């Protein structure tokens, strides 16, 4: 299963619909300080089930919705979609027969949050289960390393380190 696209709209500083296409296994993201690179990491953590606003550098979950700039007004909705190529059928369970898998999350200012998998309404639990056993989502979430956070992996307390190993099993 390969990630082919990350689509953002109204998510943090990505107010306009934006698609990051990932054609190769070695993709770089560059740009000046404050331009929005780490917001892409937050988007991936959010769509894969992150429910603690502090882990997304905000106070409340609504802080992921674009809240305006000098020239633009705040918007009412944020959405992120990950598209995977599953043509090798690597993903187990009910989604094994799909050649393409899309996981999407949407949030409106009134707090209504919605997950969908391949355009079918899903619960957060379904999304977490989809990635269960890989380093994505879950407590240790070692597949997405935030800025300045890699050293935490080895500075963890012994019982937390055990948890990281158990998730990778």
């Amino acid at each position: 299963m390969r990630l082919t696209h990350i689509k953002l709209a109204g998510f943090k500083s990505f107010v306009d619909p934006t698609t990051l296409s990932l054609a190769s296994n070695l993709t770089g993201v560059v740009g000046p300080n404050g331009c929005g690179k780490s917001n892409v990491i937050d988007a991936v953590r959010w769509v894969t089930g992150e429910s603690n606003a502090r882990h997304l550098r905000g106070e409340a979950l609504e802080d992921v919705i674009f809240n305006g700039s000098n020239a633009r007004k705040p918007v009412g909705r944020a959405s992120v979609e990950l598209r995977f190529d599953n043509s090798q059928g690597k993903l187990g369970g009910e989604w094994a027969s799909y050649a393409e898998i899309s996981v999407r999350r949407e949030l409106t200012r009134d707090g209504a949050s919605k997950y969908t998998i391949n355009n079918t309404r899903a619960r957060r639990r379904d999304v977490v289960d989809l990635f269960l056993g890989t380093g994505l989502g879950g407590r240790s979430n070692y597949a997405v390393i935030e800025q300045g956070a890699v050293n935490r992996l080895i500075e963890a307390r012994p019982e937390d380190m055990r948890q990281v190993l158990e998730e990778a099993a």
Partner: protein
Amino acid sequence: TRQRFKHTYEQINDRFSAMFPELFGGGEAALTLTEQDWLTTGVRVMARPPGKRNASIQMLSGGEKTLTAVALLFALFELNPAPFCMLDEIDAPLDDANVARFCDLVRTMSDKVQFIVITHNKLTMELTEQLHGVTMAEPGVSRLVSVDIDTALGMAG
């Protein structure tokens, strides 16, 4: 489940102690257990850079800590690759010699693992096969632009 954890621990420990000397050009590292009982034991990291006696994580330098963490991360990936691996400026504390070793390892692992790396470092940019630039030409609004390595260097530095 005792057996299961023992098996996982041994596999990750093997990979970790193999990755470490590749990244450091020598030295040794291992995962050690805090108790006898597989069911309740915690796990600690021991790392000894080449030529040094110290093995405690606390006394490592900033760059040595990052490189040790990368060795453990890649050991976890070898055992159980997630669909992709996203790294945000993980190369920031590393000197050029260590960035080069890091890039070599990423290149080798990219056969099995899909990497997305955010970086300001020229060597890491040169490792990638595709580069996305993010700009705020309109203040406060992020936009993607397609870049080649020279433009990328101008943007980030």
